[in-house]
């Protein structure tokens, strides 16, 4: 069953076709990987779906509702969360206070479900719980440190935690593995799996194919704003167009 489907999405910046009619759908509970060389329109795709950029053409359907041209906060409220490629934490707040913002949003307040529950639940405890789930050491000082003093690995997790606090149906991750060391990525992978087990659908935009292929159920390849392949990763990397566009023409 598809949770989100995109039909003929197009966006032009000046004379540049960032996206020219991309269609695909995401099934509930799966992990979809999106790959493509630099400038192929991956981030624009996320921006168009989550409302940060207005698409020129096409439609976005989420659980049957047409959410094209909705404003970003409204899209977030129905459970479509996203991370940013360039991390955007609230630098002047401590890490756990970063989560108060999504926890304060109408969606999280309605869904409740944290300790204390309901409208006036204990958001601080809820924030620490989520951070622990995402790999912050609960009894250390890390959750209480200012976001501006945290290393990249934690900031990437904080981005994910901010999405989780919304209790999302689907998360779009814009390069969560980039800038991380191999061991940090290795510790992120189980986390991604865990989110999937929790029933969250994930769309991962990634440059690091080896890591992506470990978790992704399906992969979609973009080039020059067009979808050039889609399917199981073994099929996608065998596709001659993908090889030519992305992995180079020579034999690997």
């Amino acid at each position, binding site marked *: 069953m598809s949770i989100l489907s995109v039909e003929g999405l197009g966006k032009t910046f000046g004379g540049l076709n960032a996206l020219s009619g991309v269609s695909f759908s995401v099934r509930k509970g799966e992990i979809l990987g999106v790959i493509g060389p630099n400038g192929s329109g991956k981030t624009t795709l996320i921006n168009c779906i989550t409302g940060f950029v207005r698409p020129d053409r096409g439609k976005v359907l989420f659980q049957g509702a047409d959410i094209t041209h909705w404003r970003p906060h409204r899209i977030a409220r129905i459970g479509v969360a996203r991370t*940013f490629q360039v991390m955007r934490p609230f630098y002047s*707040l401590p890490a756990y206070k970063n989560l*108060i913002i999504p926890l*304060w949003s109408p969606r999280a307040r309605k869904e409740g479900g944290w300790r204390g529950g309901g409208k006036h639940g204990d*958001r601080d405890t809820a924030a620490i719980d989520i951070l622990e789930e995402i790999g912050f050491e609960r009894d250390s000082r890390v959750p209480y440190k200012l976001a501006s003093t945290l290393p990249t690995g934690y900031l990437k997790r904080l981005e994910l935690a*901010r999405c989780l606090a919304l209790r999302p149906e689907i998360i779009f991750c814009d390069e969560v593995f980039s800038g991380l060391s191999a061991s940090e990525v290795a510790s992120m992978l189980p986390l991604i799996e865990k989110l999937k087990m929790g029933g969250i659908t994930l769309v991962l935009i990634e440059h690091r194919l080896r890591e992506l292929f470990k978790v992704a159920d399906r992969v979609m390849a973009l080039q020059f704003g067009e979808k050039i392949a889609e399917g199981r990763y073994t099929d996608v990397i065998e596709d001659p167009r993908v090889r030519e566009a992305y992995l180079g023409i020579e034999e690997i």
Partner: protein
Amino acid sequence: MKDLQGRKERIDRGIKVRSDGIYAVSSLREMLYLSGPRLLLIAGLLLLPLLLDPFPYWKRVINILCVYALLAIAFDFLANCVGLVCLGGSMFVGLGGYLAAVLNVHAHLPVGLSIPAAALAGAGISTLLILPCLSLRGVYFAIVTLMYPLLFTRGIEAFDLLGGSNGITGVDSFPGTYLENYIILLILLAVLFGLRRLLIADIGLVMHAVKDNDQSVRASGIDVVRIKSLAVFIASFIGCLGGAYLAHVYMWAGMSLFALDFSIIPIAAVTIGGGGVLFGAVAGCLILVPLSEFLRFFGTFRIVLYCAILTAFIVLKSEGLMAYCTRKYEQFERWADA
């Protein structure tokens, strides 16, 4: 020689560390340490009219000081807690003043009703006017908010509205000078502590987050425009409150209520006092406003002295007086080996 090689280090005072947690309530001394500065401010402000009783002129300075402090708090709140640099102070005062005068003179509302009513209506109008430019940032937003008071004065002048250049006369005054002083002092204290309460609540965090990164706030399912307009409403309510009060003190509302002083002096006060903590805004006004009154003695030369003192503050204590005092209160310095 040792001093040259050593470096200064700052260490939290013992009492600051001890009074950090909830356990501070177990000791009177630590409770006093925490609440001392606040009590000092409250007591000092409330005693001011009594101490200045022999000087009627200075009792009137208290009033204008409090109005400036309200504007400085509003500016500090918008600029350092929500990230909107708003130069609309004179618009708030002007709107509040004119509305209070109209409500009092034409609608015959008593003072006790016309001030809150004018503040509410003024805040509503200001918010509506600022709403279209909320997506602007930094200096662009500042310029638009600076434009509105000019627009109002030219409008009043050109179309001879609301008494034209004569203004509206015959506004009721307060029954007594003590009441005049204490009303604005109590308003100031209520606004100061109320706003600080708001800022440590979750909605205050959301406002801080809007200043940090509005895109992430959007992605967290929160309508940034709504948060910003709420903040503008609160700030303009505070400013209009000051303006409405001023119209009743002067018993008159005229174009000079839109004077740019009301936009500029609060910024100078926040610069001197230090931004982001609201107390700094009040401290800045406590220094700047009496200073500018003292300097009246020098005639037109006072602007030069005023600027010199302002520059000295900015060069020598650029972190702001409040940040400096907080540091001294909470930490001590000592020489350590490098």
